[in-house]
């Protein structure tokens, strides 16, 4: 066992910023709109090819608007479920509405930390913190909806743990 020094922690689970709901709402709306337009075009082409008595797509727009409304109504729950905690040994991320996930990343396995902020998140003063470990394709965990100060503080907290070898 190697000697350990106490690390900075978050002193319990923390929630992400509530403004993230607006970011999710905007991005979900844009995504569902794009899917609705593409799938409606496909439906239109199919109706035309089948010589249907009507040409106006109905199923896909209703389906995707329905999914969009259902998704928007779950945003509050999605936000409530998102939690992160930095303990002395691990970073614990919890999220998910349908599939609920808790991910545990030992602090000394973290190879590097990214802070990203898209145009929409910047508009609301938010950043995302992504954690990387060895051998994984991409980030193993991304904490959305942190203020720039929170993101910087979290980054400093995590990089103080010197990443050891794999």
């Amino acid at each position, binding site marked *: 066992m*190697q000697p350990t020094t106490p690390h900075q922690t978050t002193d319990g689970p923390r929630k992400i910023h509530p403004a993230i709901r607006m970011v999710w709402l905007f991005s979900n709306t844009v995504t569902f709109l794009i899917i609705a337009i593409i799938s409606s075009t496909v439906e239109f082409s199919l109706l035309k090819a089948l010589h249907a008595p009507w040409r106006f797509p109905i199923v896909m727009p209703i389906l995707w608007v329905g999914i969009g409304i259902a998704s928007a109504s779950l945003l509050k729950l999605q936000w409530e479920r998102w939690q992160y905690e930095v303990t002395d040994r691990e970073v614990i991320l919890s999220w998910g509405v*349908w599939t609920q996930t808790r991910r*545990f*990343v030992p602090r000394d396995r973290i190879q590097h930390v990214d802070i990203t902020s898209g145009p929409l998140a910047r508009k609301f003063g938010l950043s995302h913190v992504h954690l990387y470990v060895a*051998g*994984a394709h991409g980030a193993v965990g991304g904490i959305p909806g942190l203020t720039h100060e929170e993101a910087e503080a979290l980054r400093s907290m995590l990089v103080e743990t010197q990443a050891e*070898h794999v």
Partner: protein
Amino acid sequence: MFDRPHRLHPAAIVINFGSYFVSTSKAMATPLIALVASNARSGTHMLALMIGGFLALIGLFSLIGPLLHYFSTRFYIESDALVINSGFVWRKRRTIPLARIQNVNVERTIWHRILNAASVKIETAAGAKSEGDLAALSLEDANKLQMVLLHHRGSVEAPVDQAKPTPIYSLTTKQVFLAGMLGNRVVYILAGIFSVFQFDRSEKLFRPALQYIGHLSPMAAILAGAIAFFALVVIGWLVSIVMSATRFYGFRIDKHDRGLLLSHGLITQFRTIVPVGRVQSVRIVEPILFRMYGYCEMYADTAGTFDKKDVGAANKICPLLPEGQASQIGQHLLPGFEFERLQWRQVSPRTVARHATRYFIQLATLSAWPLAHWLKWNALWFVIPLAIYCWILGLFYFHYVGYSFTNDLLVARSGVFRKQAVIIPFDRIQHYTINSSLFQRWLGLTTVSVSSAASGGHAIHIADLEAPIAETLRVTIGTAIKNHLGSRRGGL
């Protein structure tokens, strides 16, 4: 030894030309076949001209690259790092810290052997391909470089240890053929046939085939289909035997002071050292035919090797291993590995219902359209045998799936037809996850997943544990990781 810039062996021009030519020709083979088939009535001279022109063009392009590569590539070891300078127009300088090297493979194709050369492939934990690929060095230089790089203490003057390796395991020629006979490459052949049809835009091959089948009586069509299927299986089987014989001929494992030395290959010879201190996980795989004959395959994944397609079976420790000898080989890879003595724990019996439902939905979705098309409403009769079949599959799944742990290792096994056990030492775990879908929560079940640095495709997933048991396992994993801090062997 390698402190000054070294050129590649001139054989690199021939080797690279060959590999460029073969890979380009492979990529162009199916459009070429389709093109030839589509213009079959254009006359022999025209066809010969087309094929000749095609090959000449591929040959010309394949020669420019290797020449530029040979004249522009230099490599040397500088301050604990391997530096490879390459590129003629776009200059590239790649620096690979020696401490980050996971594996170094020496490979000899038939061309290498004719030209007395060998290629050296260097892997780190990153990327899907070897990070350093030296196409040809003299055999002596290749072996020396492998030793120096694996020494990874940074000393350029590191003594090259020539201690005689101790044999651990070897395959007889009969066993090599058996390894091939227990596999089947029919899927590769089917993929090749479909890719030809895909490129056959003018339908010169596809339409006549369909018309021919259309003219047959139903019984003759079924018979023709059965004969074609049987022929494909036999061809796939023969291909598998040939591939196994060429790849694993003379297979042997030796204990080397740097790790395990794997030597094999009939045409292309592989000489791979697996650094045991860097093994992230070990997998024991039992496809159905292997299991029937009491054999298994063993893989040892180091960081980044799980998806490296350009390295010949680098993580396959043994293509054919009697089940009883798994622990004997495993102990050389992971200290304390005693597979036969593991106390297996089962997951919740409710997993039968969940998996049976999943199999039923998958199979029903796949078969619904053809069955409904042929049998109309009578297709619904198939629901009953399908449900029974899926329930039996679920029972098989429950019977085999399980997990176990010792003070140092976490092990999980899964699979119905192709069974697999994954072993990850606690000191190699990178992260772990507990999740539960809506359906699982209704049943009070949870999945625990554990990943190492080599787990891109082979993480441990222990599905359908009772929620309190999953929580206990989570605490056990967390505590074990904490207890193993600082005990990691090898490092990077």
